[in-house]
């Protein structure tokens, strides 16, 4: 009995501690696409201010859902919410950083950036029409490359994902068969392949599966030394993914605050534009004023101090003009 009492005492002593806000926490969840850069920013921000920004990469679909049901302080999504949905769900939306989705393959004897693909072959591979790497349609684009006579394993995202949204948006825009059979969205019904959870999951499966192809945000490809491909863009040039080609695509974008900055950057017309670029967005709940102010403070800090870190991870920081537009948007909504 005394032991029980003692236990209760310990319990009682622990209770207030576990409820107290030891450090200030901002909870965010959503897109895995910008996870590397957000977590790097959060790490530095924590050192500077002591505020903990807990960002969990659960996928863009999750980000939209969790902020819509108000289970987090902010959601993040690469699939911008339509202006009418933002109004309906009483949300706010602004972009945070720009990046690119790249196809990644796991092929012996092929180095990153060597494999060349165009929209049509990429689409046919993901449709399951092109089944082998030795298919003439692939080898035609890759003169000097020795491609194996093996079946292609397609790896896609199993969760609701903005990376998938950007990728399928690109395929639907450039490939009529894809638009008709599969469509575009955060989670689509892929005709072939295996599904990995998150950018992490896809990168991991591609890394572990020979002769596979998948698509991930470029930072994941780079950090994991995956064989990313070159792509033919709208202007007809083969471009390598990288800071230059992403910013080239970013410069073509005209974001509009009135529409919650709703905009796609896929298949950009620029000469050196990477065709599968996209912005990633932060979504706030209108009525969570205090949490929003904290979140905005963090992103304001990141806009001022985070550009180098973002560049290190091959994300494109937003152009200054866009940052100013976003700051005006924050002020207009009473968050700064």
């Amino acid at each position, binding site marked *: 009995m005394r032991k029980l009492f003692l236990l209760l005492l310990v319990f009682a002593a622990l209770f207030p501690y576990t409820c107290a806000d030891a450090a200030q926490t901002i909870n965010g969840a959503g897109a895995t696409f910008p996870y590397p850069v957000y977590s790097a920013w959060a790490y530095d921000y924590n050192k500077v201010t002591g505020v903990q920004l*807990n960002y969990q990469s659960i996928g863009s679909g999750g980000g939209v859902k969790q902020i819509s049901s108000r289970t987090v302080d902010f959601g993040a999504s690469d699939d911008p919410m339509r202006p009418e949905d933002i109004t309906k769900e009483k949300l706010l939306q602004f972009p945070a950083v720009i990046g690119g989705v790249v196809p990644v393959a796991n092929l012996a004897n092929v180095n990153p950036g060597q494999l060349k693909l165009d929209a049509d072959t990429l689409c046919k591979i993901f449709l399951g029409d092109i089944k082998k790497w030795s298919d003439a349609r692939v080898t035609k684009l890759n003169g000097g490359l020795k491609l194996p006579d093996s079946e292609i394993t397609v790896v896609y995202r199993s969760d609701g994902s903005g990376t998938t949204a950007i990728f399928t948006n690109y395929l639907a825009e450039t490939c009529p068969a894809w638009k008709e059979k599969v469509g575009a969205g955060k989670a689509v019904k892929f005709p072939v392949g295996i599904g990995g959870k998150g950018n992490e999951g896809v990168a991991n499966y591609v890394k572990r599966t020979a002769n596979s192809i998948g698509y991930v945000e470029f930072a994941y490809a780079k950090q994991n030394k995956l064989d990313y491909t070159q792509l033919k863009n709208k202007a007809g040039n083969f471009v390598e993914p990288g800071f230059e080609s992403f910013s080239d695509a970013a410069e073509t974008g005209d974001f509009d605050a009135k529409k919650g900055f709703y905009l796609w950057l896929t298949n950009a017309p620029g000469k050196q534009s990477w065709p599968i670029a996209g912005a990633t967005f932060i979504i706030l709940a209108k009525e969570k004023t205090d949490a929003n102010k904290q979140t905005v403070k963090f992103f304001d800090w990141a806009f001022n101090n985070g550009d180098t870190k973002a560049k290190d991870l091959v994300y494109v920081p937003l152009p200054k003009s866009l940052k100013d537009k976003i700051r005006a948007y924050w002020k207009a909504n009473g968050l700064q």
Partner: protein
Amino acid sequence: MMRVQKRKIEGSIALTFSTLAAFLGLFWLIFILGDVLVHGVKALNLDLFINDPAPAGVEGGGLKNAFVGQLLITLFATLIGVPVGVLGGTFLAEYARGRKIARVISVLADIMVSVPSIVIGTFIYAALVKPVGHFNGWAGSLALAIIMVPVVLRTTEDMLSLVPWTLREAAFALGAPYYKVITQVVYRGAATGILTGILLSIARVAGETAPLLFTSFNNSFFSVNMNQPISSLTVTIFQYAMGPYDSWHEQAWAAAFVITIFILILTITGRLIIKWRYR
């Protein structure tokens, strides 16, 4: 003679197969444990316990937040689950002994022991995460407690039933009310058995991942605030092992090693107690 030989050959083939089967079982255990051990020990270092995670893809950092979070979640699950389980088991073995309700609850508890834990996670999400408005550690503890209750309840019931009835009669004869008989005589008699049940139930829930995925969620920082998302070893292992970074994989192995050892120690202790007490 031929028939006898045939029978003997058939017999030895069958017995060889079952011997092989037994060693196959042993083989898997050694394979899995050995793998966890080799990879885990390699990745084990002090940083793991005293540092919080580094940002994705950056080497270094530790899992202090996950260790502490796991302990907190499991501790509170135990504090909720054990009293309910023990009291429930007491009711079945004492006040309701032999009645239909005891049998029904006992069977239902047996079924609940094996109900998919992920279903309990979805239940708690709808019941405790959505209304509260955010993922929180309490939800994780409660989900684990729900898994724990039937386990503790059933062992308590069994262990109390093993206490000889005459012992209670002796106490009644001294004029003790039933609750006193239970708390001071019956519990004392069954204490080791109940303790074992508790140990095994902790071992059971400490390794659970599925019910934590949408309840306590995850947190990349150190936090002891149970009202907020809190990190746990198991969810972290899921995230890290599925992730692409080699440093994550190493830490996942190390975390796997720690949690496996913890659970095996609990299990072995429980078994030893049973063996020592109920030989």
